[in-house]
């Protein structure tokens, strides 16, 4: 009876990885890629399928910054707080985004449109300071450009 509830995609995924050692992180990656976060129901099912305690799965999810437990907003704003970006003023940019959207890092706006993430390094230090919205990279961003950039996404709605 329990088995009927299983998500078919998840079953397929688990089959693919089942025989490989140390598969948990890779399965979580695929779940997050698909859903944008790791839903609790899927963790529960995964725990049964892999015969791994739920606590073990949550232990891993909460250790790594990459995995999320909450659905992210429609657009993910990743502000680089790496050293190069920090030196070129990304702290000021962060304050500006926070004050415009009224959220802190790791939060989603009330309308669910933006999720703000302060990340470590996007690996394009030559363009510092860098803001990445979804997969679009904005380099050499200035404080007064932030409002314009964000409004583009708001207008799309």
């Amino acid at each position, binding site marked *: 009876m329990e088995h009927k509830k299983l998500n078919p995609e998840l079953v397929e995924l688990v089959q693919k990885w089942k025989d490989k050692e140390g598969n948990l992180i890779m399965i979580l990656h695929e779940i997050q890629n698909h859903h944008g976060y790791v839903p609790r129901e899927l963790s529960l099912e995964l725990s049964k399928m892999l015969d791994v305690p739920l606590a073990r799965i949550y232990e891993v999810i909460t250790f*790594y910054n990459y995995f999320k437990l909450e659905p992210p907003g429609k657009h993910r704003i990743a502000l680089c707080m790496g050293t190069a970006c*920090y030196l070129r003023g990304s702290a000021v940019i962060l304050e500006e985004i926070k004050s415009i959207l009224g959220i802190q890092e790791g939060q989603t706006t009330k309308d669910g449109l933006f999720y703000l993430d302060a990340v470590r390094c996007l*690996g394009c230090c030559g363009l510092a300071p860098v803001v990445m919205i979804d997969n679009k990279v904005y380099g050499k961003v200035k404080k007064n450009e932030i409002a314009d950039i964000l409004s583009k996404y708001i207008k799309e709605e």
Partner: protein
Amino acid sequence: MYNKVILIKDTDLKRQDKTRDFYTHLLDYLRENNLHSEILLVRVADIGVYDKGLVLKMLPDRNTYINVQDTDIKRIVDSILQGKIIEELVFRPKVKQHRIVLRNCGNIDPENIDEYIFSGGYAGLKKVLGELGQQKLIEEIKISGIRGRGGAGYPTWMKWNFAREVESDQKFVICNADEGDPGAYMDRSVLESDPHSVIEGLIIAAFAIGASKGYFYIRAEYPLAVERINKAIKQAYAYGLLGNNILGSSFNLDLEIRLGAGAFVCGEETALISSIEGKRGYPHPRPPYPSVKGLWGKPTVINNVETLANIPAIISKGGKWFAQIGTQTSKGTKVFAVTGKVKNSGLVEIAMGATLREIVMDICGGTLSGKPVKAVQTGGPSGGVIPESLLDTPVDYENLQKLGSIMGSGGMIVMDEDDCMVDIPKFYLGFCVEESCGKCSPCRIGGFQMLGYLKRISEGQGKPEDLAQMRRLSVAMQKASLCGLGQTASNPVVSTLKYFEPEYNEHILNKRCPAGKCSHLVTYSIVGDKCKRCGLCVINCPPKAISGDKEKGFSIAPEKCVKCGRCVDVCKFKAISKD
């Protein structure tokens, strides 16, 4: 199809008109002589040469001409057509970059294995499998003197030899591509633009120790690198370079990708192993070293991307050739990601022994603002800050360590006078505190306490005895932490205390931040004679701390000011001073 290309740098503001005139003249000349379909003229933003007048670069010959005049047009075009070089115009940089790791980057199509093979790729592997054999291979690597490029600088041949000598039914090789150091991106660049060189290096490493299974541990934040390595592995299987009986030999190897998930500590060998095993990335005490007991308890060799990219070149050209490059103790080249307040930010590969000044001033053109360099930071959060007065130090593992920094993975951050030497260690330590896995207390508690001291100092609450306390804490962290993260986390603090103690004292005793970075210690005021009384700052001040009128002038009430700096941003006359 154009056979020749001339690049012209047109972003030098000082000589904008002259550059434009030259561009038109050259284009006219090409048209008049009907050469415009053969020689393409391209305006580019940067060629990497500064203060040398008009700069041109010829492709595909890669000659750079400096101080070019209008009168040179004819002879330059003639020389291109004849395939000659005009000696007196050629730019010969004092320090030349020496590209071994980056040899193919930008020159081949990274998604095409044939281009890699055509440029001499996989010849090293063939040599290893055909004539060298395990023993001679390790001997060759020993002669080359290459040391791990991931940070600690452990001799690669020793790592391999330990793992080779251990008897085991299975051994593993791992490529550490978890480049988490903020401000460093050389591994990403190699993975994305020359994936096969890393794969070839990893296959050779596997052969050296007798491993049958290998892993790429790559940051999930580098999707393109993951995709390229994935493609490259598939191509290598198709060409018989992976799988069973590689190149007709009895050697078998399977390669797989495992993704990191955003934990800096996973760059540490033992933590990385835990992560591949699908667990929390907790480090383990060493010994036993991974070479003896690593992944799933089996002998494992973990090499950094840059180390592996060097290996094929060493095998093809010989260990002796590699050992000629570099200094007595550090052989070969090192790739640095030079970023921060620098004009020409990017990847620089130099032979070990070049000085920091050569890298920062000659290759990268000095600071962006033209202000003097204050310090250079190497080694990321585990490294230290090197003051301007020591920039003539030749770069190698030992020298950097003597200065209180480390080579690290290759981040190099340039700072100018506007950067505060209390704020910088606060930034790095904040990073290490956040990334500390929390397993051992010296790192977990020590880091947190130290960050508290730095925060108080930057807020003007510091006490003179704090500095001694921070020094004590850093010794405890260095000696008692379990892994490299905790042992080195205090390096930025220790090195700034060593070279910039007066700046700390300025914060503590005089409650002043000389660089104007620590917002709590900065007071904003309006400079009367610069102020044009436009009133823009008044409208833009969020807490309405600026008062006055257009006749009498304006002033900032310090008790209302929240130090947001908005008035500085909006003032067009630079009439707001920060002190």
